[in-house]
């Protein structure tokens, strides 16, 4: 049983979910899990429909993704050298997208144990979407966290105070263009710590010896 379990789709009612959302749905992707992308102006009403009509009553999480590739790569550049040229094309993931920032949330039906990931584009100019704290009360803190980490504003949120950072902190740490300062002052030595795995093939030890 366990050999096939990972590939079995958990969603059995894709059509039902799609029908309930109607033209609010922009795109969807189905592979073991279900990803939905809804119109930005229909974000809150879509979540309400998912909760009331489809029964996704359990709020799992809400967060955001910054799809811009990091200009700092994986933080392994030598800070004394000039930064290398990097590809900056924005490429969104499952269910597509048109903007750099996307907010995504996961909700679950506690009876059938079916879950969906709902994504929504965040307009590049205003970086504002509707707050869903009055649909799912648990979204309150998640939106506060997302606001402080990505700088996305949630319209109608009662209290977008910082949760973790000091009030006078500048910048949005989880944006890709926010540098990880520890990697800016000293080159990262960790890249050489690739541990040989038991049972792994011994052909590729090319990355050993990259130590500078």
């Amino acid at each position, binding site marked *: 049983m366990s050999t096939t379990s990972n590939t079995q789709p958990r969603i059995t009612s894709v059509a039902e979910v799609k029908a309930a959302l109607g033209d609010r749905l922009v795109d969807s992707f189905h592979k073991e899990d279900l990803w939905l992308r809804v119109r930005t102006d229909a974000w809150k009403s879509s979540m309400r429909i998912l909760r009331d009509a489809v029964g996704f009553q359990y709020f799992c999480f809400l967060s955001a*993704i910054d799809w811009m590739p990091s200009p700092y790569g994986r*933080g392994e550049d030598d800070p004394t050298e000039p930064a290398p040229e990097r590809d900056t094309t924005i490429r969104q993931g499952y269910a597509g997208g048109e903007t750099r920032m996307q907010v995504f949330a996961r909700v679950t039906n506690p009876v059938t144990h079916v879950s969906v990931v709902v994504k929504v584009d965040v307009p590049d100019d205003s970086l504002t979407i509707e707050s869903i704290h009055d649909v799912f009360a*648990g979204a309150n803190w998640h939106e506060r966290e997302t606001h402080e980490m990505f700088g996305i504003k949630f319209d109608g949120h009662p209290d977008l105070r910082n949760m*973790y950072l000091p009030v006078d902190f500048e910048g949005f740490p989880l944006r890709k263009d*926010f540098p*990880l300062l520890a990697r800016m002052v000293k080159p990262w030595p960790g890249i050489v710590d690739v541990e040989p795995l038991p049972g792994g*093939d011994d052909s590729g030890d090319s*990355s050993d010896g990259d130590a500078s």
Partner: protein
Amino acid sequence: MLGDRQQLSYIAAQAADARLNLELETEGMTLNIGPQHPATHGTLRIIARLDGEQVVWAEPACGYMHRGYEKLTEVRTYPQVTTLVNRIDWLGSFANEVPFILAAEKLMEVEAPPRAQHIRTILFELSRIANVSLFLGDLGVQLGAITPVFLAFRDREYVLNLIESATGGRFHPNFDRIGGLKDDLPAGWIDETRAVMKKLRGFCDQIEDLLFGNEIFQSRTRGIGVIPRDVALQYGLSGANLRASGVDWDLRRDHQLPMAWNKADWKVWTHPDGDSFARCWIRLQETRESTKIVDQLLGSIPAGPVMAKVPKIIKVPEGEAWVSTENPLGEMGYYIVSRGDLGPFRVKIRSASFNNISITPWLLRGVYVPDIVTILASLYFILGDIDR
């Protein structure tokens, strides 16, 4: 929203108290609990505005332990990330590694061999026992009973010794690998574990006698901090907190994961009351169930390797995956976005305590000051699990 019986007594108590506050002309005051306080398991600070003995408004202030793991994962390779996520819920560290590894394996479309799945499940349950037994002891301390905590620390030590002898790490094993486990079990470990599980069942009985049957304990927890089913779901409470509100949902049973829980016979406990007592009682029963799961799985560990064939340099194919497991504190999951690189593009860590504690501004409204401690203790959070 509350059940009828509780609602009536609650309204009556509030009305009586409001009358008393008026008569005594009490002044409002702001009480700061924490960041360092015995009742807060770390550095959770609670700011409560009081009217007499009653909380009018309360708000936890997090962030004293924020380590930025979501940012750090973006500059680590996949095998390096398990070292970080070990430290999210430090009492049940092995359980933190598993959903991350499973999510990476899902993207790579590899699966651990059956022996590794079995041992993973056993170690997962051992970390749950280590975690929850400390809760059961600590609960007593918070409510003024000293004995249980000594029993808890004594018996937790046996479990930690087992984890140490199998993984080499007492608190942060970092034993899980993409494709399996670092090593096989040491000789004699199985018999030793059986003996410890027996001791732990004795510990559960002792706690039940000492604490759960105690009149003071019952009067301080029954009807305190009632969370109705709908509210619990809306706030995304998970684990024992959700099951104590009557939701029959356990990810170990309800999610099809490549783990060995479905090979054992065990029960998911629920409680209809949703109060502090229910949450504590559910955890006690779950510890018992965990010892049963471990006992059964020990007898049926399949032979074979503990590591699947994976390349030495791990690159995870492009895609997005979400895997969550039923951790000691509740639903813990990782949403991994991969770009086919050595490390993840973005990892969203969904930790149980963040959601579990986000209900406190709603839950603490109207309670009495000593009940703040009861409610926080029964919600059971780990600071590292809130702040990440």
